[in-house]
C-alpha cells in the first residue's frame, strides 16, 4: 500500500530536528518576508530553505513539487505582465506581446512568495513522519481524539485507493467507458465514486463501534510509549528563527523612518 505522505526515511539532522522546530521555521519563512516587505528577504529565505534541503539530502524530491507550481507561476507572470492595471512602463516586446515593468514586479513578488512557501513546507513535509508529528502534538497537550483523526486519515486513504481500483476494474469489466469525450468521462464519475463513498461510510459504523469498545470516549489521561522533548539543539534553532523574525521587524521600522 502506497502512503500519501511524502516523508523520506533518511537519518539526517533535519529528520532528527523536533517537528515543532521545523514548524517554527515555516512560520518564520512565511511571516518574515511579509513583515519585512523587501524582495531580498524572500531570496534570503529561499537560500536558507535550499541549504536545509541540501543538508537533509532531499533536494531531488523537491523538484517535482516545484515543477507542479511552475504552471501557476507562469500564468501569473503572463496575466500580470500583460494586463496589470498599473502597467505603464514597457519593459520588452515578445512578438505581438508587450510586457510591462509594474506587472512583472508584482508577479515576481507573488511568484517568490509561492516558491518560498513551497520550499519552507518541503523542509517540513519531507523530513517529518506524520505518526511522529501526531505523537509530538499529543505530548504537547493536543487532544488525542484529533490525533486519532489525523493518523487514521493516513490509514484510510490507501485503503480507499485499493477499493477504488477494485471498483474501477469491476465497472470497466461491465463495459463502462472511462476514456473519450468530456461527456463520457463525466458520466463515468458517478458510478465510480458512489460505491466507494457508500462503502467507506458504511465501514465507519463498524469502526466507531470498535473504537468505543476500546475506550475511545474514556476521559483518563493518556500515557506515551516514547517521550520526545525539545532538545537544546531544537531550542537554539528556534531562537535563531525568532531572531530572523525580529530582524525583519527592525528592517521594516528602519525603512519607514
Amino acid at each position, binding site marked *: 500500500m502506497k502512503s500519501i*505522505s511524502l516523508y523520506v526515511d533518511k537519518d539526517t539532522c533535519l529528520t532528527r530536528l523536533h517537528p515543532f522546530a521545523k514548524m517554527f521555521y515555516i512560520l518564520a519563512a512565511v511571516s518574515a518576508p511579509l513583515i519585512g516587505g523587501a524582495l531580498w528577504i524572500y531570496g534570503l529565505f529561499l537560500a536558507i530553505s535550499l541549504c536545509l534541503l541540501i543538508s537533509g539530502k532531499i533536494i531531488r524530491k523537491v523538484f517535482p*513539487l516545484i515543477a507542479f507550481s511552475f504552471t*501557476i507561476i507562469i500564468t501569473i507572470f503572463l496575466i500580470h505582465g500583460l*494586463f496589470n*492595471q498599473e502597467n505603464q512602463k514597457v519593459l520588452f516586446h515578445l512578438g505581438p506581446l508587450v510586457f510591462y515593468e509594474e506587472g512583472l514586479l508584482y508577479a515576481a513578488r507573488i511568484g517568490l512568495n509561492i516558491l518560498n512557501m513551497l520550499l519552507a513546507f518541503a523542509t517540513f513535509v519531507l523530513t517529518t513522519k506524520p505518526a511522529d508529528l501526531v505523537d509530538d502534538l499529543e505530548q504537547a497537550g493536543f487532544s488525542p481524539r484529533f490525533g486519532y483523526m489525523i493518523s487514521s486519515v493516513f490509514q*484510510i486513504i490507501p485503503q480507499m485507493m485499493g477499493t477504488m481500483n477494485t471498483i474501477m476494474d469491476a465497472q470497466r469489466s461491465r463495459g463502462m467507458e472511462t476514456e473519450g469525450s468530456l461527456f463520457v468521462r463525466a458520466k463515468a*464519475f458517478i458510478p465510480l465514486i458512489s460505491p466507494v*463513498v457508500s462503502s467507506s*461510510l458504511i465501514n465507519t459504523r463498524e469502526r466507531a463501534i470498535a*473504537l468505543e469498545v476500546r475506550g475511545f470516549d474514556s476521559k483518563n489521561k493518556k500515557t506515551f510509549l516514547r517521550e520526545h522533548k525539545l532538545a537544546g539543539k531544537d531550542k537554539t534553532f528556534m531562537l535563531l528563527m525568532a531572531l530572523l523574525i525580529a530582524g525583519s521587524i527592525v528592517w521594516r521600522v528602519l525603512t519607514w523612518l
Partner: protein
Amino acid sequence: MKNLFKTKLNAACFVLIPACIGINYLGKLFASVLKLPLWLDSIGTCIGGILGGPIIGGICGAANNLIYGFTTGDSITLVYALTSLGIGVAVGIMARLGRMEKLSGAILTACVAGLTAVVISTPLNIIFWGGTTGNIWGDAVFAWSQASGLPVALGSFLDEVLVDVPDKLITLLIVYAIIKGLPKKLTSLYELDDEVASLD
C-alpha cells in the same frame, strides 16, 4: 432552530471525519484521472456537514486542507483551509434547516455553498496569487477582465464564481444521490433527537 449548531462529539463523529477527508481525496483523484475540468474535492466535506452538522462539516473542511498541506507539501491547499471550513459550515447549516431533503433544496444549498466559497476565496486569491485561481477557464475570464480594465477584485470574483458555483452544484448533486442511498442503520448514528430507552 435551537439545534442548528448542536453537535455530538462521540466516536462515530470522529470516525466520520477521516472518512470524509478520504472521500475528498478520492473525488479530486477521480476528477484528475477522468480529466474533468472541475475540482470535486469537497464531496466529503459536504457529506460530513450533512451527517454531523455544521461543526463537524467545518472541522472536516479545515482538517482536510491542513492535513494535506502538512503532509503532501501542497502549500497551495493550505491557504484554502478557510474556504473549506466555510463550505462545511454552510452545507451543515442548510442540512440542519432541512434543505437537503428535496432536490430543489439541494440546488439551493449548492448555490449557498458556492457563494460562501467565492466570498472567502476571492481575497485569498488576490493576496496569494494576484487574483488567478489555477483553473484554465476561470483564469481566461480573469485575463479578459484585466485586459478590459476592470478592477482586480471584480475580475477575481468573476473568475471564482465561474469555477466554484458549477463545481459545488455538481458536488452537491452527487452528495444528494449518495445520501439518499445510505442505510438508515448508518444515518441514525448521527441523528440528534435519539434517546436511550431502558427495557425493564
